[in-house]
């Protein structure tokens, strides 16, 4: 490998808030691990974990205590040592229910104890997803002293100040941030991981994020050699860039699923009866959806049909799921059986200005029309769409999901379990499924858990609260000389092993 140099990476939008606990958006999450390190880390396939700041961890036989050993000699980017107290403080902050949106991931922890280089987590109950949670961005270890030294009275104020110039222990450290324009990350000289050459990672001296909102401009800039990487390449241009010999067009497997979320309640918000409350109708819609054609049209062949509500890159995905093959006759039959011989009228919310939503829904309009499902598209701006969705005031909407944690519980808790968000606001509730899920949350045996998840996925598929569509990869284009970059299925951009070859 070649060491040194600066890599410029074109992002479509800037990060908002670089606090691991209080941030809200993928814009932050997907780059945070470059700045902050976690005790454990997700593997590159996103399905399991490997040691991070903790070199080892042991689960007690009763599965209610997790003991982690801190790696010796680890330091924050300012050179100060990472102490067990920093770890305890960080984890306590991350699991504080008053802090941010992610504390639920660490919900099972009853208390954290730190002594020497040992961290002991006492659990309320066995938690099969705990190790994955510890490899998630919000469980990042932050320097307690520096954080407390930041100006501001409350934790929230301090967080704001600290996040402007964060010091973590990730491979890079923020050196300059011109909001909306660029962000410069410098190599963290104290990073613990070693590269192929036996010296400390990362290889790059500087990593620079340029914010280039327009897709075409981002690509032009990459083609002109002004930047070495660009994210979110429109799928329509993948083929073109693949053919470009100066570029490496990569499609990283992702946990991203694209679906149509349906309102399963008998009545819509405005009181009109909702045919989608009939499972046969929901199944019919699924059968009427030609995923292969959609993948061709919307993703230009760069997608995979969904057979479960979760992506095939999510741990415990059941390969045996059949999903809904395209079957127009079955669709029609089911509709008739449900008493809708003349078809039904449905309305879907779409995000205005989203080319993908446009393409998708116009295609569905045609497909479903053949089965007598007359789709009306209602374009809304994101804020309005979200507000309507959260108020359960919709019939259908385009939906997409990416996992944040290498565990199926997150997506399942959101999609399949009623919970606080009413099963992705579909209103779907299946008591058996709920029981299975509760069980799976405490089932530490991997094999048993696989079985539970198989049942969950089958139950969900049969009830069809959503329309399964397709999975899409993360399209990233890189200059030919860029090596060692990965975007893991959780979306994290991993630059620690990235190098610019001659």
């Amino acid at each position, binding site marked *: 490998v070649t060491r040194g140099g600066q890599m410029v990476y074109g992002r479509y939008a800037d990060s908002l808030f670089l606090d691991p606990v209080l941030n809200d958006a993928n814009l932050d999450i997907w780059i945070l691990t470059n700045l902050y390190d976690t005790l454990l880390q997700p593997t590159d396939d996103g399905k399991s974990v490997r040691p991070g700041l903790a070199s080892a961890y042991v689960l007690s036989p009763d599965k209610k205590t997790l003991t982690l050993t801190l790696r010796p000699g680890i330091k924050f980017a300012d050179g100060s040592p990472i102490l067990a107290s920093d770890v305890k403080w960080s984890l306590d902050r991350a699991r504080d229910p008053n802090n941010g949106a992610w504390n639920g991931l660490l919900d099972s922890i009853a208390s954290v104890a730190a002594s020497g280089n040992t961290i002991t987590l006492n659990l309320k109950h066995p938690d099969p997803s705990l190790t994955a949670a510890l490899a998630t961005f919000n469980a990042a270890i932050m320097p307690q002293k520096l954080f407390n030294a930041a100006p501001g009275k409350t934790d929230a104020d301090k967080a704001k100040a600290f996040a402007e110039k964060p010091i973590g222990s990730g491979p890079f450290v923020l050196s300059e941030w011109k909001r909306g324009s660029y962000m410069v990350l410098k190599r963290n000289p104290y990073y613990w991981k070693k590269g192929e050459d036996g010296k400390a990672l990362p290889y790059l001296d500087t990593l620079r994020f340029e914010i280039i909102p327009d897709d*075409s401009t981002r690509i032009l800039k990459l083609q002109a050699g002004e930047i070495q990487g660009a994210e979110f390449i429109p799928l329509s241009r993948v083929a073109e860039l693949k053919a470009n010999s100066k570029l490496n067009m990569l499609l990283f497997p992702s946990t991203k699923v694209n679906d149509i979320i349906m309102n399963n309640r008998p009545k819509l918000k405005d009181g009109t009866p909702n045919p989608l409350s009939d499972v046969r109708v929901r199944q019919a819609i699924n059968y009427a959806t030609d995923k292969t054609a959609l993948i061709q049209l919307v993703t230009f062949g760069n997608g995979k049909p969904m057979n479960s509500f979760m992506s095939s890159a999510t741990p415990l995905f059941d390969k045996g799921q059949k999903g809904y093959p395209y079957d127009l006759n079955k669709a029609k039959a089911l509709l008739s059986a449900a008493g809708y011989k003349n078809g039904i009228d449905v309305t879907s919310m779409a995000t205005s200005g989203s080319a993908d939503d446009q393409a998708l829904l116009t295609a569905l309009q045609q497909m479903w029309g053949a089965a007598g499902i007359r789709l009306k598209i209602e374009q809304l701006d994101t804020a309005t769409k979200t507000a309507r969705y959260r108020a359960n005031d919709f019939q259908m909407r385009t939906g997409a999901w990416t996992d944040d944690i290498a565990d199926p519980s997150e997506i399942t808790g959101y999609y399949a379990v009623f919970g606080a968000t009413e099963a992705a606001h579909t209103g779907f509730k299946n008591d058996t499924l709920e029981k299975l899920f509760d069980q799976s949350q405490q089932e530490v045996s991997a094999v048993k858990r696989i079985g539970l998840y198989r049942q969950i996925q089958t139950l969900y598929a049969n009830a069809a609260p959503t329309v399964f569509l397709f999975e899409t990869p993360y399209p990233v284009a890189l200059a030919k000389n860029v090596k060692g970059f990965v975007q893991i299925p959780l979306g994290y951009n991993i630059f620690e092993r990235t190098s610019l070859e001659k």
Partner: protein
Amino acid sequence: MPKPTLLIGLVLLLILLLAALAPHVLAPYSPTDFDYKAILNPPTARHPFGTDNFGRDILSRVIYGTRIDLQIAVFTTLFPFLFGTLLGALTAFRGRWADALVGRIADLVVVFPFLVLVIAIVAVLGPGLTNMYIAVSAVGWVSYWRLTRGEVMVQKKAEYAQAAQVLGYSPARTLLRHILPNAVTPSIVYLMTDMSLGILLGASLGYLGLGAQPPTPEWGVMVADGKNFMATAWWISTFPGLALTLAGVTFSLIGDGLADALRPRA
């Protein structure tokens, strides 16, 4: 006296109107139907303007788009024109405090960021052409108000207008029959420019997702849709772009021609 500019403009307009009124006669295909087998085809005899990423025939979409874009041109300007012109005439002719009040409101409209207004309206009513019309109308009247007001201020001092008063005609007659017809020309000429601006605005808002919604074949949105294919399928945005230019030229020619034709002979 023959007016070549106006004549050419009117001929072009006629062509546009024809396409707008009878797209189904002219267009070889449906503007919205997909053809999976003909995705991103370059111009051929079958598809003279090529096809887009859904296999839709660009020629047909451009032809069907005429109606949409002419509609945008008319609806973004008609209300502002009527309202602004009438209000301008009234405030200039009679209004003391009304004139001042409308002036303040106009100031407010001008300094208020248009985009905030559009998005606010779109957020309440949803995106789409109708709501774009509302947003544009809420702002667009100011230009016409200004133009007409200024012109009426001038015209009401003209001797023919004073003559109408001295002839004992009622104020309404003086304003509507005498002053307004002579004060409306700048507004009509501006109307033509404004129509192309309206179409352009529609395209810009389309770029931000606030304009015409798919699968509506609107030229501006079509150009935007073709943005990602400029390197591989130039035809997707080029032909609607040409259509936009043609419409712009048409309105501009008619505008220039009208300015000439409507100027009263001294």
